[in-house]
């Protein structure tokens, strides 16, 4: 049995790591290389890196900290994968098979596609055929629109689609996606726990691994979603940025409580990710 994966998500906007609240507010937290190095040292199970930049500007512009300026997301992936030997998923702005192949070649293991999967579902089956389903993650942003009813939104949560997350996840499974990342727009940045029903609905609807996202504010929230929906992966962003050793703490909490997670370990690979 595969262990539940605890997955930090790093949101990148114009070369800076940011915090997100309800898909609207984005507060700058720092430089990606140092933050990525930290997660690597903490033995995270996997890392998701979502680029939410609206333009193609990845200039880190931090000469004061001795970081080189980085020209593109590909260089950031490249930097990361030289110091970190764990699975890396990259998302944001992917529109073509070439975008996917470039990211995989640079060192990503999976890519996640959101809006373009809606605009052009064929992209998912084309990518699956060439790169394999296992590296194609479709991410779905959903909002509760009525009691017990959720709707898929695209374009950074701005555009309603009229489709339920279950139906969309099923369609993406049929098109060849290998994993579904389901994110609650309502819970984004709230720290009050996952949208249990939304995630459970998607887990029940398909036979693909599902990664839950949106709302984690405490280790108990991870336990709660495993109990309720047992998703394959549990992702979160802010909690990992603000809490010291959060990966280790959450992993330890779950492991001690008897959940099926990897044995917690703090830093094992001795290599400086904090360049």
């Amino acid at each position, binding site marked *: 049995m595969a*262990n539940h*994966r605890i997955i930090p998500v790093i949101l990148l906007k114009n070369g800076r790591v940011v915090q997100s609240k309800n898909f609207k507010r984005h507060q700058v937290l720092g430089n990606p290389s140092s933050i990525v190095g930290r997660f690597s040292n903490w033995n995270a199970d996997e890392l998701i890196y979502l680029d939410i930049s609206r333009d193609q500007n990845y200039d880190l512009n931090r000469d004061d900290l001795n970081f080189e300026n980085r020209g593109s997301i590909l260089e950031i992936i490249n930097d990361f994968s030289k110091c970190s*030997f764990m699975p890396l998923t990259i998302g944001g702005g992917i529109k073509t098979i070439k975008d996917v192949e470039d990211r995989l070649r640079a060192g990503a*293991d999976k890519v996640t596609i959101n809006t373009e999967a809606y605009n052009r579902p064929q992209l998912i089956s084309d990518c699956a*055929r*060439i790169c394999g389903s*296992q590296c194609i993650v479709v991410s779905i942003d959903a909002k509760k629109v009525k009691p017990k009813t959720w709707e898929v939104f695209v374009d950074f949560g701005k555009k309603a689609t009229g489709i339920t997350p279950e139906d969309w996840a099923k369609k993406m499974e049929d098109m060849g996606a290998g994993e579904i990342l389901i994110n609650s727009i309502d819970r984004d940045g709230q720290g009050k726990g996952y949208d249990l029903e939304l995630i459970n609905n998607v887990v029940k609807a398909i036979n693909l691994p599902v990664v839950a996202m949106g709302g984690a504010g405490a280790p108990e929230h991870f336990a709660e979603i495993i109990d309720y929906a047992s998703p*394959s*992966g549990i992702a979160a962003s802010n909690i990992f940025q603000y809490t010291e050793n959060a990966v280790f703490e959450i992993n330890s909490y779950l492991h001690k409580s008897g959940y099926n997670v990897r044995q917690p370990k703090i830093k094992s690979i001795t290599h400086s990710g904090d360049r």
Partner: protein
Amino acid sequence: MLGLVNYGSGNYQSVCNALDFLSIDYLEIKTARDIANVSHIVLPGVGAFNDCMNRLEGTNLLDDLKREVLKNKKLFLGICVGHQILMSWGTEFEEKEGLGWIPGITKKLAPKDHLPVPHIGWTEVNHNGANELFKNINSGATFYFVHSYHRATEDNEDILATARYGDDFAAAIQRDNVFGVQFHPEKSQENGLQLLKNFSELKGI
């Protein structure tokens, strides 16, 4: 010297990074002459069986690989799909003949308890501790898997290590000088790095 076959596989760079990190010298294998110059060969692999096999056939390296591995007994390690194409037959998307260096065919995972497919995540790998490939790695150590297909065969003879995802399946196989691992050592943190180091230190047959 270790050689890494570059045939356009998505995880080529990740394996390079792991070897760089371990300070293991390696050569990028692009031509027949490169194969002659190495003692150990690693075949990375990710994606679909037929696509990987087609790409490998497209390199014109196959005859030389066969000679150096099967006749000259150079040590060989296939990773993920690089391990699957060691089998004689693949069934992903379309049926495709594999290398046939180790008996078996690949089959889609159909785990009991309706576990999702692909199998993605960190899963315990069990071995008997006798093989040098798993030196300094505990049985039960976790490795990162991401796959929808696995080796299916009646014959358990070549199985070096197993993992359980609903049912037990072959996580690592070996026949003579040919090794294959279903997981991704280049993405399995310290356990994976140790395995790559172990392979690079294996003595020839």
